[in-house]
């Protein structure tokens, strides 16, 4: 069910109505039924039911056992079994082809002509989200930071809470249990605020992201025709397309959750204002970063092997280097995990994993040197122009890494990268050439105007909630903005006849 579809609109309205009309003690049951409808929508089969039940039952049973056997070795054994089951199901459904491709490459290297065929497996929506969520549930019980859930249906709701299945954010049981199961009163103010957030999400997806996608898709699909500056523009457009698409869908689900009275953690805080890649990742897909830090990076860093490596490096090199080597090694593993999580393809592992690590590693390595040089030659780092340069540099670096993320294969990514060097700057000036790659002049105008609106809103949001600021304004201005938003979406949105439905880039994960 696409978040921008009328079927989702109807689904959300019915859910909200039932949630507040039925007795409050039934609220969490309404959510559970809605979540199951969303989870199995057009995807109900014995296979998908088994997938979901396997994760739910193993988490439930093993969670209870871990708690019962706290302080014993059994607890660790149960935790490992639980994680293995969840990751096993995830790997079987999502990464079989990555495994087959790797084996085929190895066979190729040894000149074995046999090749394994790739397989098509049907997985449930949000499998990558609920798998990690349930792993964190088991680990938290093991760590003693949360108690196991006694009611399996309540655990099922935590696992399948429908707003997060589409594109996150990652939630933790300890933070969500009260939110999900407590009784919520209807609030008119929350309704208004939630609706405005939903509208803003729709604006980002339908007006900006879909429009950017029309250009990006055209160029990426026709590299023989569109190269040079066409490709440069497509490469620069894609991160913005990804951001407006992803954060827009987060806005929609946060809006719905807000109406229901359930607070979810924020996943984006204006990432494109970041002046470094390290800062960027603190503002982009925040909950994924937090999850990986909490459950992969820190445990790895504290592991016996890393501690030994730390000591070894301290003795071999210096205290500073000794500290950095295990840290970067753990970080590398974490970034590879991020890449793998994004999908069963090497393009994801490189684009959203390894390249990001390289940039962050280089920033850490070269940052102090650059600062020293700047000081020596008199370049001020605390002025607007330098911050602007660093912001643009961060955007460019992210754009380059996203070539791999967007490309269909590594070969394709290299081809895209090389096509940048085709010399055709005149397409920006002559005979409207630029308007022949999926977006005409009027579309470009709408795009530029909506990007300006996005910039203003993002800028304002750095000093507090824009919606709170809006609701403090007088009624004429406030309603004017809301009407403009509604008609902006309805008229300038890319939907309906002549457009592909707004597919969510992050939905596949």
């Amino acid at each position, binding site marked *: 069910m696409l978040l921008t579809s009328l079927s989702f609109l109807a689904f959300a309205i019915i859910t909200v109505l039932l949630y507040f009309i039925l007795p409050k003690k039934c609220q969490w049951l309404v959510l559970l039924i809605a979540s199951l409808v969303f989870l199995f929508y057009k995807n109900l089969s014995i296979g998908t039911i088994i997938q979901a039940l396997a994760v739910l039952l193993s988490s439930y049973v093993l969670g209870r056992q871990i708690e019962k056997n706290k302080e014993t070795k059994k607890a660790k054994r149960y935790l490992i079994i639980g994680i293995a089951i969840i990751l096993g199901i995830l790997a079987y459904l999502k990464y079989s082809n990555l495994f087959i491709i790797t084996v085929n490459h190895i066979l190729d290297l040894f000149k074995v002509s046999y090749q394994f065929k790739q397989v098509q497996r049907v997985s449930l929506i949000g499998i990558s989200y609920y798998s990690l969520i349930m792993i964190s549930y088991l680990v938290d019980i093991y760590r003693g930071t949360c108690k196991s859930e006694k009611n399996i249906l309540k655990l099922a709701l935590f696992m399948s809470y429908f707003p997060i299945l589409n594109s996150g954010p990652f939630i933790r049981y300890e933070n969500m249990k009260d939110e999900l199961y407590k009784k919520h009163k209807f609030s008119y103010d929350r309704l208004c605020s939630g609706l405005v957030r939903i509208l803003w999400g729709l604006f980002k997806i339908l007006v900006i992201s879909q429009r950017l996608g029309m250009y990006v898709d055209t160029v990426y699909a026709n590299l023989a025709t569109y190269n040079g500056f066409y490709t440069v523009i497509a490469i620069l457009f894609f991160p913005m397309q990804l951001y407006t698409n992803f954060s827009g869908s987060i806005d929609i689900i946060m809006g719905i959750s807000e109406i229901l009275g359930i607070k979810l953690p924020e996943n984006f805080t204006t990432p494109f204002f970041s002046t470094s890649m390290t800062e960027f990742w603190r503002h982009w897909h925040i909950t994924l970063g937090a999850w990986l830090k909490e459950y992969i990076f820190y445990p790895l860093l504290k592991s016996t092997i890393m501690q030994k490596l730390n000591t070894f490096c301290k003795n071999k090199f210096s205290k500073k280097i000794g500290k950095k080597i295990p840290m970067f090694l753990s970080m590398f593993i974490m970034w590879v995990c991020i890449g793998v999580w994004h999908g069963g393809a090497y393009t994801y592992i490189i684009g959203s994993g390894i390249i990001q690590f390289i940039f962050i590693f280089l920033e850490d390595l070269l940052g102090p040197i650059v600062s020293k040089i700047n000081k020596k030659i008199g370049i001020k780092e605390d002025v607007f122009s330098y911050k602007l340069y660093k912001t643009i540099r961060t955007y460019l670096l992210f754009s380059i890494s996203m070539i791999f993320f967007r490309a269909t294969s590594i070969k394709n990514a290299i081809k895209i990268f090389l096509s940048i060097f085709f010399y055709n700057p005149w397409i920006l000036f002559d005979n409207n050439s630029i308007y022949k790659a999926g977006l*005409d002049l009027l579309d470009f105008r709408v795009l530029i105007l909506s990007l300006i609106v996005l910039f203003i809103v993002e800028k304002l949001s750095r000093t507090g909630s824009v919606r709170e600021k809006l609701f403090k304004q007088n009624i004429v201005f406030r*309603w004017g903005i*809301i009407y403009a938003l509604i008609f902006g979406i*309805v008229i300038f949105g890319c939907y309906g006849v002549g457009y592909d439905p707004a597919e969510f880039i992050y939905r596949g994960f």
Partner: protein
Amino acid sequence: MLERKFFMLKIVKTAIFLVILFILWVGIFKILWIKDSTSEFFKEPKNTLDIVYVGASNVYIHFNSSLAYKKYGFTTGILSAGAQTPVAIEYLIKESQKYQSPSLYIIDLTKFVNNLNIYTEGEFRNTFDAIPFSWNRFEMINNSLKYSNLKSDEYMNYYFSFFKYHNSWKKITKQNFIEPEELFKGFLLNTETLERKSQNIGYWNKEIESLEKDNYNVLNNLLNYLDKENLNCLFVIPKRGFYLSEIKKMNFISKEIKKRNYSVINFNEIEDLSINSDNDFYNLFHLNIYGSTKYTLYFAKYLHEHYDLPDHRNDKKYNSWDKTYEKLKEHYKELTQKDFEELVEESTLLLNNN
């Protein structure tokens, strides 16, 4: 108490917000939508039409309702769209009953002989788009589209026309903001309908060929509805070119309709019309303004003589019909530098001579 007052205030505010939203919505989409004959029909004030004339393009191109009014004083609403699917006719009649209570329905039979799956998106939209939102519209769309190759999840684009027309902001011109210049109470007059192109219109064959099952069912459902509602109805086969198989099917349809005690006029068999295939067509299927003037004068006279239709020409309530006729004359003059009245006189003379 204070809380209740506060709550009521919020409800009132929301209601006002929604009303403004609705007004803006209607206003904006009126600009974005393409105005056609059907939208002209729904502009008529309630219960002011004496006749409702339903059918495909042969209705709004052939029957000049303001001329008929000028001659005899009765008002005819044109509920017509290019390539209007016959499945829609029953629902269009239902829709018109919500606004009008005419003493006569005229139904053009042209499209009953064609397969029900030949219609393009544009042709479907011609029929559906101007119809106000209602359950009847929903049923009309469902029943019309079920014969097409569309999947049911594609129907949504037809239920909510803004899915299609929101994108027409790119093609906005002056025409979007003003009343249509070429439509006169639904009747179309433009440079194309002024052309004279000689056509090879054959004689009317008397043979009979059965209708396809689907078409037969559609006709039957329509007749059942007319019976049920006890509506006074006249069926017409317009003067135009038909293929042989279509003629045979049309004969079958006529027979079936007559069996149910409804009248059918086949204008292809009426010599007195004075329409000749050299001068009075602009293409094989449509009369030009010269042919349509003859057709209107003949048919309006027939209706005046055979039905008890009122004369509204001295009633101020019907001033818009006089104004439309004047606008039509001006437009004709603009396009041809000639007086429309002269054409009417010439045509009347010709008809009288026959």
